[in-house]
């Protein structure tokens, strides 16, 4: 089951560029939370701070605290342990091209030395069913490479790969922005189902997408979080003028 995320005074830098400034918010467990805002507003940096991927860039820096469940991820644990509990799906599908579909899904487990064949078979099947890809690939699991699938299938494969390690939180950084409308709607249906089991944080450019899948929405602008509220309120009656301007299309 998912856990909640509590972010306090989070600041992040790329070199001298202060990309996130004093972010405070509580992301509820087992719900989908959308982050919207114009390009370069810091929303991607923000999700990358939630699994400590931000700091893999040598010029990046973070201060503040992020609690996932009971764990302060910047003081209580190593990045490697955090990333085993927090799955991530990237903007562009990035399956491993030299691995079969099966090995792609199992990679998070085999990487950590898990090699119980029967348990792996079960987990791979369950993850692919959860990511709504099973029926399309079940006959070629070990025959086809991850790169042989279509873009939308590759992205669902990446979701299955993230789900296979049974994460508590699933971060999605514009997971559908490189996909066609049909694949996009499949991913959205998927998010709808997955949020009952996982805490989902989804970054999106597409405001309709946020409105469709998320209970909560945060609006980012210039490295600050302008407003965080229920999705319904953000899209019908935002309290901040800048949020209203953005969602009504006056800028961004």
């Amino acid at each position, binding site marked *: 089951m998912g856990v909640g995320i509590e972010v306090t005074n989070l600041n992040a830098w790329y070199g001298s560029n202060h990309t996130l400034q004093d972010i405070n918010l509580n992301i509820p467990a087992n719900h989908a939370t959308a982050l919207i805002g114009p390009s370069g507003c810091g929303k991607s940096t923000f999700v990358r701070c939630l699994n400590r991927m931000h700091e893999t860039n040598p010029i990046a820096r973070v201060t503040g605290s992020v609690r996932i469940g009971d764990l302060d991820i910047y003081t209580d644990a190593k990045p490697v342990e955090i990333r*085993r509990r927090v799955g991530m799906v990237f903007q562009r599908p990035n*399956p491993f*091209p030299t691995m079969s579909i099966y090995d792609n899904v199992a990679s998070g487990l085999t*990487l950590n030395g898990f090699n119980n064949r029967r348990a792996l078979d079960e987990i791979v099947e369950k993850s692919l069913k959860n990511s709504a890809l099973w029926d399309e690939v079940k006959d070629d699991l070990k025959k086809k490479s991850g790169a042989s699938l279509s873009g939308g299938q590759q992205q669902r494969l990446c979701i299955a790969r993230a789900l296979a390690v049974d994460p508590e939180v699933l971060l999605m950084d514009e997971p559908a922005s490189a996909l066609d409308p049909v694949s996009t709607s499949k991913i959205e249906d998927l998010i709808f189902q997955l949020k009952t089991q996982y805490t989902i944080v989804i970054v999106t450019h597409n405001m309709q997408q946020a409105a469709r899948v998320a209970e909560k929405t945060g609006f980012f602008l210039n490295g600050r979080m302008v407003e965080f509220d229920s999705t319904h309120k953000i899209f019908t009656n935002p309290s901040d003028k800048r949020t209203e301007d953005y969602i009504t299309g006056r800028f961004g």
Partner: protein
Amino acid sequence: MPEIRISQAQFQPEPPKNGGERPAGTAAPEPSAIRKFLLSRGNSAVADRGFHLLMVLCALSIFGIVALIATELMLSSQMAWDKFGFDFFFKAFIDPDTRLPMYWDPVNGHFSALPFIYGTLVSSFLALLLAVPLAIGVAVFLTEMCPQALRGPLAFLTELLAAIPSVIYGLWAVFVLVPLLREYVNPGLIKGLGWTGLFSDDNPTGLGFLSAGVILAIMILPIISSLTREVMSAVPHSQREAVLALGATRWEMIRMGVLRNARIGIVGAVILGLGRALGETMAVTMVIGNSPEIHHSVLANGSSMAAVIANEFAEASGDLHRSALIEIALALFIVTILVNALARVLVWAVTRGAPARVN
């Protein structure tokens, strides 16, 4: 250049007359200076065609040179080929007096390339064995772990190794490497691993297959590591992030996200290193011992295909001797071309091919 400045002065647009408008019925104005200049340039098709032809000739000359070399080698080795046929590469002669196999006997006109092929293969294989792990280590460090400030100088130094003339490697090997191996390394090998039969103690000089292999390893290190670095850098960043996001350590990320995707190109880099090792002449000639024999022990004296040509060609004892040497050259020529072609295809497959399609 005053001419140019003068002619550019002519290109100033003339001030428009009548406020820029031409009354109906009047003649068209004189073409501008720029227009006149461009019209006077004429048709450049002839010059274009000439340039094209010149470049095609330059390109074709490469094929011409390769074809000429191959033809000359084949013609000049005809005599040895007619006399020995395929046996030249596979068979030894039995000395009627000693009953021992003999390979290379210019006095009695017996020639077999076998010990030289053996020496080339053994020294190159030893070189790969030593150079490949080191080169991959260097490449991994430089692409994945090295602080930015150190990366440029280190990469530059590694590649500088490739620019040192091989005779200098040879000299260094004769004066430093061989004594070092003889005094400190070989005794240990003989003591610890002598039972394998690969390290015998009957050669006190320190010259031999192992010395040749070590110096070759140093010489092929730069090409293997720089090409490995190139194919590793061609792996998209998203692959590294994908592995990291699964909770991988840095080493697991390198193994799964980088080396695995680059492996075909790394094999290509290794084969290219092999190609260089096979053909390397000077340094090997100086340390391999130059005796046309086949031994199990890597500490024994041997010779290589390139070494025997360098040593004996100038004072070959007759047409057959010279022809046999040229036949060895032909074999080396064909093998190195094939090995290099294979390597280039593999490297190309990674840097232009498969992973680039994914992202």
